[in-house]
């Protein structure tokens, strides 16, 4: 991001007194990019980041208002506009990514969310998931209604689950000690320490908590 864009962003943040998280706009955008990339590469649905998304969205509309005030002959306007488009792409791509995961693993996601204390779905996403599940079930029931009383309920207990053992590239943001590398066979698990800034390829399952905590990020 160039300095000019920072300027435009800073003007907005100054007006924004009720923001309770202290964050410069550049940090906010960086954070947004980070959660977007994490969501993109994690096999499972990650906890939602409603606040960040809302902040970025209000940021975008404020930036748009600022750009409006520039005369259309100003050649900087094009750059700002493109920057806004880029940020907007990140946000929409992030939300789309989540919707796709919710659709694919709908039964799994809803069940997990019920069992967990902290909800990974935002309220709107949950509503969407419930409706989607309802429509899907209705459709399947419809498809198998021709003979009542058959073992048609099987698919409900046999749903699609994300592959938690798939491999991910990650980069450590801080020093992490004692990550267990699960070899999947008995007790001979290896324990590794990850230094800040180092990158590695590892099975997702072992590091999922650390990614949610924010010690590691996917790349």
């Amino acid at each position: 991001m160039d300095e000019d864009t920072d300027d435009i962003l800073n003007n907005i943040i100054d007006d924004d007194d009720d923001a309770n998280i202290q964050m410069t706009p550049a940090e906010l955008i960086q954070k947004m990019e980070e959660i977007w990339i994490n969501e993109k590469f994690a096999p499972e649905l990650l906890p939602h980041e409603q606040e960040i998304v809302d902040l970025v969205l209000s940021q975008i509309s404020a930036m748009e208002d600022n750009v409006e005030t520039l005369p259309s002959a100003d050649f900087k306007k094009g750059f700002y506009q493109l920057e806004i488009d880029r940020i907007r792409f990140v946000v929409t791509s992030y939300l789309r990514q989540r919707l796709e995961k919710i659709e694919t693993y709908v039964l799994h996601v809803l069940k997990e969310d019920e069992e967990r204390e902290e909800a990974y779905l935002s309220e709107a996403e949950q509503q969407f998931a419930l409706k989607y599940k309802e429509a899907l079930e209705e459709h399947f029931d419809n498809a198998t209604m021709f003979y009542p009383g058959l073992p048609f309920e099987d698919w409900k207990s046999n749903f699609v689950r994300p592959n938690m053992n798939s491999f991910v590239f990650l980069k450590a943001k801080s020093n992490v000690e004692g990550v267990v590398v699960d070899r999947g066979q008995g007790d001979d698990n290896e324990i590794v320490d990850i230094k800040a800034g180092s990158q590695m390829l590892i099975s997702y399952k072992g590091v999922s908590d650390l990614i949610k905590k924010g010690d590691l990020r996917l790349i």
Partner: protein
Amino acid sequence: MFGEKAYLLIKELDRNRDSLPPYNTELLSEIHNEVKQLVTENQEDANVSEQSRLVENVSYVPTLKIRHAAIKRNIRCILAYHYNRLKCLKTIRWQFGSILPPEVKANLSQAEIDFFSKYSSSLMQYMRGIGDDGGVNLAVNLKPPKSLYIEVRCVVDYGQLELTDGSALLLKKNSRHHLPRTECEELIRQGVLEHVV
């Protein structure tokens, strides 16, 4: 052989990975009949099985099990067929928006049309609910933006197009325009405009 028709159904899916062929009512009802027949046969055999085991020392259990496996397999194939069609239908929703193109609609079953409208409305509701002011349309900005304006060629006679800044222009067949990317993204996906690279 059991399950042969269901296999045909899956083969049909495999042949048309990215398109929606007409809903195969005929084949489906044949499979339905096969399942029904298997169930009836199983019920009959289950009734006589107990007697015959005692009298003639013959058990029908293996036969029952094989038929049951065939039934389950058939159902799995039916569900797979429906599920994959839904997936395709969802892609169409993202591509063309909430209104089904007539040529697609002709190939769908009533249940699928119902599903489409339900999916579409819950998606709309979700998109309206994002953010504070009026929601976000997730169906645009599908690709990372490279430049603000792109060059497009008009493929059909579309008529008047009004841009967000208030100006209007006429989209005639084979005319070329230099437009903001956000304005024409949807039209490109609908096949009205063509991106000139």
